[in-house]
């Protein structure tokens, strides 16, 4: 029933979106629909795709800020949206929650198999935006912390993150199982970084693309045992347009580095620039 409901929504969305991708012969001239999550960093990447496609002579329709995966993946699957920036690990977790792969190439391979019919993952980018555990520089120094392994034996650890972290495989239970580290959990949600800086929590789950890691000198603890799923930026496309779009998008994925992504995000959070300006600047600086 849930899938029926989703299909229904997707159909409705497809109708609203003027039935893109229903005609087969017009694919050259038809506008490419680029979507994005309601996440500022994702929108910047989508805007880079959109502007690059426009530069290559495509007509582009932007469907940005679509929100959660439950809302936009049916649109991708139905062909109402052609291109969407995604993250390998998080997307794999959506389609197969029990996936065991954590290393970048394994995750990418597993994702290729998990994707439903009609969707293709283009080459992934070296840029990642994945869960990571961070501590303050003082805390790292006081307890000589470099990796998650060093947390063993540190007393009174409190992990802060979104409420769902409590139940994720890399949450408190995974930390105990993989590294033998027991932590208390505090669902600090939207104020996790602030909670870490104030000392309300001692470890914070922050996305690796978050500019605040550098801004506040946080120390990201290494993950030698592969607790976290690698989550590289990966463009997801409808299979009928994959080969033509890959020509434009693949070089972009290659040029986008982890540091580059953080720099893009910083332009949004600190300089409050619009996604369009940030994307244009990046494309120019990288010679597209």
């Amino acid at each position, binding site marked *: 029933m849930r899938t029926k409901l989703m299909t229904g929504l997707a159909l409705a969305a497809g109708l609203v979106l003027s039935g893109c991708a229903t005609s087969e012969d017009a694919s050259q001239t038809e506008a490419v629909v680029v979507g994005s999550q309601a996440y500022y960093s994702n929108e910047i990447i989508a805007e880079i795709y959109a502007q690059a496609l426009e530069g290559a002579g495509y007509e582009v329709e932007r469907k940005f800020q679509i929100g959660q995966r439950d809302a936009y993946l049916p649109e991708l699957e139905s062909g109402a949206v052609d291109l969407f920036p995604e993250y390998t690990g998080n997307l794999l977790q959506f389609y197969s929650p029990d996936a065991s792969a954590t290393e970048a190439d394994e995750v990418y391979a597993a994702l290729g198999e998990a994707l439903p019919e009609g969707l293709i993952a283009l080459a992934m980018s070296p840029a990642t935006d994945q869960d990571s555990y961070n501590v303050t520089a003082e805390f790292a120094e006081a307890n000589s912390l470099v990796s998650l392994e060093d947390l063993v034996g540190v007393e009174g650890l409190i992990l802060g993150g979104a409420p*769902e972290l409590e139940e994720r495989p890399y949450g408190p239970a995974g930390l105990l199982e993989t590294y033998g580290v027991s932590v208390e959990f505090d669902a600090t949600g939207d104020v996790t970084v602030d909670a870490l800086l104030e000392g*309300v929590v001692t470890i914070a789950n922050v996305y690796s693309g978050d500019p605040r890691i550098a801004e506040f000198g946080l120390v990201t603890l290494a993950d030698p045992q592969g607790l976290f799923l690698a989550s590289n930026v990966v463009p997801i496309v409808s299979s009928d347009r994959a080969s033509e779009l890959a020509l434009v998008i693949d070089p972009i994925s290659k040029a986008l580095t982890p540091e580059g992504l953080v720099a893009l995000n910083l332009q949004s959070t600190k300089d409050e620039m619009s996604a369009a300006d940030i994307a244009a600047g990046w494309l120019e600086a990288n010679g597209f």
Partner: protein
Amino acid sequence: MNLFLEAWWWLLSPEQYVGQGGIPQRIGEHLYYTFVAVGIAAAIAIPVGYFIGHTGRGGVWLVGIAGAARALPSFGLMLLLVLLLGVSGRDSAALAALVILGIPPLLAGAYAGVQQIPRSTIDAAKAQGMTPWQVLVSVEIPLSLPLVLGGLRGAVLQVVATATLVAYVGLGGLGYDIIQGIPLRRFDQTIGTALVIVVVALVLDAVLAGASRLATPRGVRVGRLGDVRARS
């Protein structure tokens, strides 16, 4: 319908009712924020409302402020207050946001409750030789009670619904299971908890409806308004 069935099974499974993070604990947290916030809001709003209603001063001013306060987005206000007070003061910040939400209906109820008492009734009380204090305690407070309790019902209903948001800053309550369930795609948990919030809100409203029936003075009851909330 399957989703609701799944939510129902989720609600029926015994493990939801025990231990850390169980439904009883979440209801306790939820009611704690609701009652403390409404209590503080009432302690502020009812005396101020009575003062304005009694003296007749500042009415226009009050209506403006109360109306503007209703338009404040509680979620944004809560996050702003958490950032201003710091995460260690997040419970006070969340309570403050809920108090601000609860004040307008209570204030309007107290003000309107005193305001609507016919002038002749007050004059008659004064003509009996009552002091202003006696007028307030024996005439204005009893006669305004139905509207004050109507305001209280409105405030409780809004605050109990909005207390769902305190989970966004890690304070628990029933909202926790909802905002945890969505990214995990546990829709049984999300819908089941939403149903619990609805039941809690309905039970609180029913209790207050009963209380306001009991508290209405006999003389007023004869001409009692059907649903006082609509007037507050």
